[in-house]
């Protein structure tokens, strides 16, 4: 089962390695289009910005720029829509965004995507995935963008309701009344505060437990995260009288846990399989290097051991005898490695035909004598190396050239007092 999963992962890695430059922008394009369409469906007051052309254009830009740009565009789009409906609410929204950035977002801009992911996924009750995935892949600081996402999600509902009302800015009383209503609706929203608290708790719980070194720490941590998520919202339901659909909550928490595990499993695919293309130079060459990471898990490698007809030369350990005591041999990833404990598990199968199997460890004196007699004498051969085997040095550097401009220092052969050594090496030796 695990082997199958590893093979699937390797397969996906290979596909991703090859198509990274196409897959990344395409995924980004569809995700940003999803976000912009969600904003348009929620607060699409300005018809000009709900058109397919604008959405496509913005998604296209987001597909080739970092994730933060998509968040910025989403923010601007929401402001533009609200502005066309109510200037006052738009100003409030802008100030709110500034506060959120100043107090929460600026400490973890890398996970800014959570800010848009939570509102968009909340429509399908999948927003529980976000803290679980962040708990598995990030630090507890990522609770801040999560909190931002939750605030924006609940803020959108209030803004949507408030923007529908037409209020003239000249009528100060009406503006104040609207403002008071918005703030009251916001302060009365206990669900938002509970969501922020529970999500922060889930992220911290998963992070702390997965850092332990016991077996299956990750599985346990995700399990704990699911439990905290369910219990947190259920307690909030009982204590603060916030309505929660228990069935949906439990089911979606389990789904979120599964998503978190899958994301953790494939995290390396996205993080480390990137083929790097770098270029650099030294004194002699320009290098254009394509570096392909060795993260592939090799296909299953089976080694058949014939235990019934054991011959010393066939032993698996012999593969590693060529290496010294301190050298473990080549580091084969995923290849078969014999291990000391394995010997205990070896069972000798009886040979068919009723003949008793010879144990690997059984000592037979006759066999030993025959073996010694048959062994050929060790022939030690020495290879002769002529001077011609050593080619002229390829790297030719002028001794007189000043290398300090390249950041190097000139090295010259040390002058020795033993002049006789120099003399012996000259070709004129015989003439002396």
């Amino acid at each position: 089962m695990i082997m199958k999963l590893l093979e699937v992962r390797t397969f996906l890695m290979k596909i991703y390695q090859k198509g990274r430059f196409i897959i990344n922008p395409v995924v980004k394009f569809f995700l940003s289009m999803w976000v912009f369409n969600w904003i348009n469906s929620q607060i699409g007051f300005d018809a000009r910005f709900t058109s397919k052309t604008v959405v496509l254009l913005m998604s296209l830009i987001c597909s080739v720029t970092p994730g933060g740009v998509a968040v910025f565009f989403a923010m601007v789009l929401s402001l533009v829509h609200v502005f066309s409906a109510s200037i006052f609410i738009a100003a409030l929204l802008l100030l709110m965004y500034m506060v959120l950035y100043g107090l929460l977002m600026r400490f973890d801009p890398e996970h800014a995507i959570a800010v848009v992911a939570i509102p968009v996924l909340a429509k399908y009750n999948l927003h529980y995935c976000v803290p679980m995935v962040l708990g598995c892949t990030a630090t507890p600081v990522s609770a801040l963008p999560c909190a931002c996402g939750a605030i924006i999600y609940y803020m959108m509902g209030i803004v949507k309701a408030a923007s529908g009302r037409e209020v003239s800015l000249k009528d100060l009383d009406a503006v104040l009344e609207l403002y008071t209503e918005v703030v009251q609706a916001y302060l009365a929203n206990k669900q938002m505060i509970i969501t922020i608290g529970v999500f922060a708790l889930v992220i911290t719980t998963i992070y702390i437990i997965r850092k332990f070194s016991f077996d299956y720490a990750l599985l346990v941590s995700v399990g704990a995260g699911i439990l905290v998520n369910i219990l947190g919202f259920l307690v909030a339901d009982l204590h603060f009288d916030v309505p929660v659909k228990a069935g949906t909550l439990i089911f979606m928490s389990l789904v979120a846990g599964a998503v978190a595990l899958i994301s953790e499993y494939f995290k390396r695919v996205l993080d480390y399989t990137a083929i790097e293309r770098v270029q650099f130079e030294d004194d002699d060459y320009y290098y254009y290097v394509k570096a392909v990471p060795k993260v592939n898990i090799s296909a299953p490698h089976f080694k058949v051991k014939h235990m019934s007809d054991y011959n010393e030369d066939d032993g698996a350990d012999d593969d590693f005898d060529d290496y010294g005591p301190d050298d473990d041999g080549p580091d084969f990833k995923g290849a078969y490695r014999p291990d000391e404990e394995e010997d205990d598990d070896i069972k000798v199968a009886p040979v068919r035909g009723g003949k008793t199997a010879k144990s690997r460890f059984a000592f037979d004196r006759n066999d030993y004598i025959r073996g010694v007699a048959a062994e050929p004498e060790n022939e030690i051969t020495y290879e002769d190396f002529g001077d011609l085997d050593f080619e002229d040095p390829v790297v030719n550097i002028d001794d007189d050239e000043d290398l300090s401009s390249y950041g190097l220092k000139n090295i010259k052969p040390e002058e020795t007092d033993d002049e006789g050594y120099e003399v012996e090496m000259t070709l004129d030796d015989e003439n002396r």
Partner: protein
Amino acid sequence: MINNRKVRLMTQLAIYEKGEGKKDFKLAKYYKTDYARFNVLKTALAVTVSYAILCVFFALYKLQYILDNILTIDYKQIGWTALGIYLGLMSFYLIVTLLGYSIKYSLSRKKLSKYYRMLRKLKELYNEEDAYAEGTLPDDYDEDEGEDAVL
């Protein structure tokens, strides 16, 4: 002839320089205390602006009450309360920022020191090449020994 060991090392260096090294180099311009202080300053500014906006929100929310009791409000008490909350919020943020950015700086330094270790190794390789060119390579020189110990 291309020196494989050198290419391998230089590739590692180039990948680091192109990727996460960019951030680390920026950080390396500062001393740890300077870096932490600079970020604390930015945080202090952000918190002050955000707190001011929140205060305006609150004042607008209570505007009706303020207008009704404009003469009887205890401004001194309100001022002290606002200042107390501000100082509490600020000290929390400053302590967390100081700790957070100090840790970030230390982690970045670790990566950077590994980078410098590789650079030193590269310099040694250059020296070896020079020595090879001049024929002064030591007799016990082992070609396989090298970058694996560093990487």
